[in-house]
Structures are given as C-alpha cells and as structure tokens.
C-alpha cells in the first residue's frame, strides 16, 4: 500500500505547473533584452572633456540631441562621419528642418583651437540651429583647488 501511495504522490507532483522553468524563462528574457538593446549612438570619440563647475543637465529627449565631436587633431565628426570644417551648416540644415527641437551638443576636446568651435557655432547659426550646448564634465571644487 505504502508503495502504491508513493507512486500516487509522484504522479501528483508532475501535475503541477513546472515553476522551476519560470526562472529560466525570466533569465532568458533578461539576457534577450540585454543582448538586443541597441543604444542609438555613435561611436564615442576619445576626447579630453572640458570641465565646468556650472555644468547643468540638459533635459532633452535623446532624439533631439545631435552631437558634434571635435577631436584633439581638429577632426569634426557628426553621426560618425568626418565632416570638413566648412560643411557643417550644409549637414545640419536638413537635420534641423526635420526636427525643429534640435539641440546641438558640441563635444570638443579641451585643446582644440577656438577657431574650430567658433566655426561650428557660426555655421549652426547660419543653419538656424540656435540651441547649442557646450558639452562639459562637472568640475569638482577640489580638482580646481589642486590646480
């Protein structure tokens, strides 16, 4: 009798919803989202960030922000493309026409001559994209005291 009872119990256990596989499902989901998440983002350029104590957060949707990278050697990158100094306005104009909310974030290396930055802002002005941000890193008071 005892043996039969044991069999009965076993078959009852297999009747349950297999909750052990739920973990696998959840982990699978976790990994799926981790792997498939693609951040719409261009390659990061290696620049020395300029620092400012007055740095503030720019509360703007990602799709409204366009980055202009200026690397140490003076190369300008927009959307991973090298852009000649004089072609910034031509490139920005259609982008701005599509999205009037555009904010252009200038991410310049701290060592580039101001001539380049000024060239960019003047062209942005010409293209009508007047909302500009000079991307900076937060400067700590301490760091400044040491200098």
């Amino acid at each position, binding site marked *: 009798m*005892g043996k039969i009872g044991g069999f009965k119990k076993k078959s009852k256990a297999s009747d349950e919803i297999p909750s*052990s596989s739920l973990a696998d499902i*959840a982990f699978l989901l976790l990994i799926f989202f981790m792997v498939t998440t693609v*951040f719409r983002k261009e390659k990061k350029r290696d620049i020395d960030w300029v620092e400012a104590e007055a740095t503030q957060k720019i509360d703007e949707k990602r799709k409204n922000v366009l980055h202009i990278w200026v690397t140490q050697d003076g190369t300008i990158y927009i959307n991973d493309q090298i852009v000649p100094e004089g072609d910034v306005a031509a490139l920005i104009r259609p982008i701005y026409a599509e999205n009037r909310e555009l904010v252009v974030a200038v991410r310049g290396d*701290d060592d580039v*001559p101001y001539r380049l930055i000024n060239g960019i802002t003047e062209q942005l002005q010409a293209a009508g994209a007047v909302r500009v*941000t000079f991307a900076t890193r937060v400067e700590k008071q301490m760091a400044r005291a040491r200098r």
Partner: protein
Amino acid sequence: MGILKRRERVSDEIPTASMADIAFLLLVFFLTTTVFNEEKGLPIVLPEKSEEVEVSAKNLLFMLVQPDGSIIVKRGESEQEQVVTYRQIEGILRQELAGNPNLIAAVKTDPAAAYRHMINVLDEVKKAGAERISLQVLE
C-alpha cells in the same frame, strides 16, 4: 514515520520556485536603474542671423581670452584694460551685474586659444548668473 521522512526530503531541495522571483526582480531592477548617460553641458542659445542689435557700449563687458589663457577685462566704454585670471571673473561680473542688470557679458576668444580657456570663462560667466552672453572671436 515514513510519511514524515518523505516530507522532510521534499523541503531539502533548493527552492527553485523563488528563482523566477529573483530573476524577475533582477530584470525589474535593471530596467528601473538603467540611466542613459544624459547630456551635460553649458547651454546657450545663439542669436538668429537676422537679429543683430545695436548695444550701447556701457552695457558691455568684454572678456578677451588670450591664446595663453590669460584674460583681459574691458568695460565697453573705457579703454582701461585689466588682466585677470579666469577665477576672478565671477566676482568682477557679479559686481558689474549688480550695478547694471542689463550688462552683456561678451566673451571674445582668440581663434588660437584653446577651447578650454573659453569654457573656463564661460563657466565663470554662467556661475555669475549672467543672462546675456555674447560669444565672439577676437580679431
């Protein structure tokens, strides 16, 4: 006795039922804590091409950024020049702004000066709370 023993054996197992909860908790944790790196910087609105306005000289305070990073402060109407380090600018500008709220902080940067010198000055100008900022090139 036999039944009791069997019960004990079942509770000895690793509770796989809670694994799902753990996994979902992780999932939710990562979903909520993921912060996409936000934009940070010094925002400024450039003037439209057409809206060039005449400004009287007494409302201008020039900060001339030299290639070596030194700064010359010049009040619009006077020829008097004052060489300062950028750390002094905030104080000077605050004083000037208290006397004249309409003051325009005009940052004139030498084309050869490093970008960081200009940002240092702009930082000070922002910290001083200046609303009207003009960016120009030193010629």
